[in-house]
């Protein structure tokens, strides 16, 4: 009798959990920024940086944001306690271009797109993956651009920029993405 009672209880708990989870999922649909924050973090896994990127093993893997931070704390939450090849992830927010330093991923907010040339040239000697949600950013030298199509975020990747920066983008990342080359800027 006691065993039956135990099983029944387990069943009831499982059923309750299922209902709560569905309710949460429906209620908690991720925002565009939220998804982009996760994406930004996910890039770290599909891109290979040259070995000399890190001076010391203890150097953090830095995701930098220049311009207005659209993610808020979400990016911090996403990278919290994450590591890339033994390097702890850190988010740095840059107020202006002069603050730019050695960061591995730099999100360039569409608010800063006007100074894109400056930013890119500032990053010229660094192997920094540049990401932006500004339209046409990829055609203008940003390596990865978030593009929203049918309520979905799509990636546009400028392979040449990445190659010029010494970065190797995984073919897996290239598969679902739209490739923007230097030659077919117009076409894309």
């Amino acid at each position, binding site marked *: 009798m006691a065993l039956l009672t135990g099983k029944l209880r387990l069943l009831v708990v499982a059923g309750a959990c299922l209902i709560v989870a569905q309710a949460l*999922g429906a209620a908690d649909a991720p925002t565009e920024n939220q*998804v982009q924050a996760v*994406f930004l973090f*996910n890039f770290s*896994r*599909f891109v290979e940086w040259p070995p000399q990127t890190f001076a010391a093993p203890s150097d953090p893997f830095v995701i930098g944001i220049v311009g207005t931070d659209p993610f808020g704390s979400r990016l911090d939450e996403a990278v919290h306690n*994450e590591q*890339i090849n033994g390097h702890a992830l850190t988010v740095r927010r840059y107020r202006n271009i002069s603050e730019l330093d050695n960061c591995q991923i730099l999100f360039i907010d569409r608010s800063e797109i006007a100074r894109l040339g400056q930013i890119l040239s500032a990053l010229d000697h660094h192997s920094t993956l540049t990401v932006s949600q500004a339209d046409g950013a990829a055609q203008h030298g940003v390596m990865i651009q978030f593009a929203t199509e049918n309520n*979905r*975020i*799509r*990636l546009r990747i400028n392979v040449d920029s990445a190659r010029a920066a010494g970065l190797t983008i*995984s073919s*897996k*990342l290239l*598969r*679902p*993405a739209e490739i923007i080359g230097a030659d077919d800027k117009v076409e894309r």
Partner: protein
Amino acid sequence: MSRSTPIRRTLMNMIFLASGVVLLVTSSAFCAYEFLTFRSSSIQQLQILSRAIASNSTAALAFENAEDAASVLTAFKSDPHIVAAALYDLRGKVFATYPQGLPSDRLPVRPGAGFAFGRSALVGFEPVAEGSKQLGVLYVESDLNAMYSRMQLYGLILALVAALSLSLAYLISRRLQYRLLQPILALADTARAVAERHDYTVRAAPTGAYEFDLFTDTFNQMLTQIQGSEGKLQAQVGRLSLLQQITRATGERQDLPSIFQVVLGSLEENLPIDFGCFLLHDPGAQSLTVAALGRKGSRFGERLSLLPQGVVPIDANGLSRCVAGELVYEPDVSRVSFPFPQRLSGAGLRSVVFAPLIVESQVFGVLVCARGEAEAFSSRECEFLKQLSEHVALASHQARLYGDLQQAYDDLRQSQHTVMQQERLRALGQMASGIAHDINNAISPVSLYTESLLEREPNLSERTRNYLTTIQRAIEDVARTVARMREFYRERDAQLTLERVEINRAVQQVVELTKPRWSDLPQARGAMVDLQMYLADSLPDIMGAEHEIRDALTNLIFNAVDAMPTGGTLAVRTRRATVADGETRVLIEVTDSGVGMDEDTRRRCLEPFYTTKGERGTGLGLAMVYGMIQRHSAELEIDSEPGKGTTVRLNFPAVTSSVVSQPKAKSAAVVKRQLRILLVDDDPLLIKSLQDTLQEDGHLVTATHGGREGIDAFTAASKRGECFDIVVTDLGMPHVDGRKVATSVKGVSPNTPVVLLTGWGQRLIATNDAPAHVDKVLAKPPRLHELRAALAELVA
């Protein structure tokens, strides 16, 4: 396994069974291995595929590109067995499915972990991770058709392999079996041939395989032994049947030569031998006599200089041992230095067996068997010859016994025949004797009166005198003939009374007396016998019994006439001959031109009872002639040739002139005085003639009829004092015979002489068998001069 399953099928079954089991075990192991490895490899393959897909779908998951994820999942198309696949994100939500649009109830609600075989499918969950970061889970479901089809394929392959293997096994085993079975089957065929045909000459052929050759050799050796045994058995049976055949053949024969011949013939034919002979052994002599030579061996016999009845000396060789009762086998006579073996060797014979013929532990002969080759007799053949020699010895012994028995039987039959003849003659003689008695009585008056007339009648004409003389001679012949009749049965007189015989006269008399036989009887038959008489002049007399000589001549003339049934010439010849020492002999020859005699008849003609005349002849004629010849110290010669005729020659010694001729008729002293004579006889004619003649001599004769009357007369006369001077009585009379008369007379008057007259008189005289009280015996018919002599002798 059935006894009748041929070995070929059995072997095939075994091979099939063995290879089938091996194949089954191997295939089962292989299938089990394949099944197990297939499961793990299926999982592995699915894992690899899933991992690849998962790896490709990381970006899609990471960047939430469901289309891309779906397109990645379409890579599962490459494996038609994957029926369902799905990507779950980290929150456990289905992100993409394969095939696209797969209803979510077809998928697990929540992703699990790991790969496992379900009831009808292989199900697996592969985490999707980029680096160390898990991005989701890939679900894959593969049906088991692959495995099933694989298993089917395996089954098919297995069946094909099994079929192929068994076919190959069949072919190979057939080939191998042929090699294996060929010798066995050949051996079996040989064995069958031997068993069915009893032909032990067949041999199994060697095959080249060691064990089989060993087996075949052993089998062949066995066959050789059996064949040998069979051959020996056959030979033994052959010898046994030969022994039986010989024994039977000898059993059918009773004489030694024929037994020996049949034995040698059989041995030469059937044993066979090259040379065979029988030697007979005389216990006293140191040699053997050749009794029989084999037909085939006779050519050796010539070279051996062994001829029938030839002599072989017993030297210290095998023969002496054989004669001692031992079977001797000389395997090679050329190495034996003794004479007889050397003779055999010289004739081309090498091996010889001497088998003794033993009867009652006496060797009476030797069987010699020889062959041209050395050491040609086996011990069995020696044993056979030994047994055979025992049989032959026995048969020979039987034959001898049979011969002896036959001889004894023949002798007995001959004796019986003789006895019967003698008995017949005795009966005949007795009858003849009775007849003779009567005849003597009957002719007594004739004799007495004739003599009396010739003597006393002075006025007789010459013719009368001649007649009377002839009568007298005839009577004498009758008397002698009658006397001879008894010769048939009574023993001949020991001594013959010999007197001078004038041969020519005797011959003339015989020819005259037998004229009816040689003249009248043949003429009656239409045959003509021409009698020719050649009598020598001045022939000397001989000493002999004239009547016997006349009888002999009579017999010879009768024989001569009988030998000429169709007529011919009968010649009687007398002549004088002088032999070397000067002795003179008188020859009488009786020659006929008749049928003659062959050698056998001539040799046997003198035997008593031998006759060529059948029932007409007694077989005594020539025998009597021969008896006469012997008694007269004469000789008898017979010349005869069949178809040419016969000459019988009697050869007598002549009388030498010095011999004094006995007075022919002794003019005895005649009693001058008158005598009182009592005559006693039962024959009135005799009484009358005696009385007449004696009375004419001047005597006083009282005649009485019968013995009783005679005794009474004598007694009466004695009482009257008129005693008789002499009594003449007959011997044989009814009631009271002459002996009793004599006894009575002597009882009354012992000095009165008694003369006994008898028809048997001559016998009594000859044997001096005069009864008691009889002073003289006179034979009937009484001769007057004899009677007178007796009277003179007794009364004076």
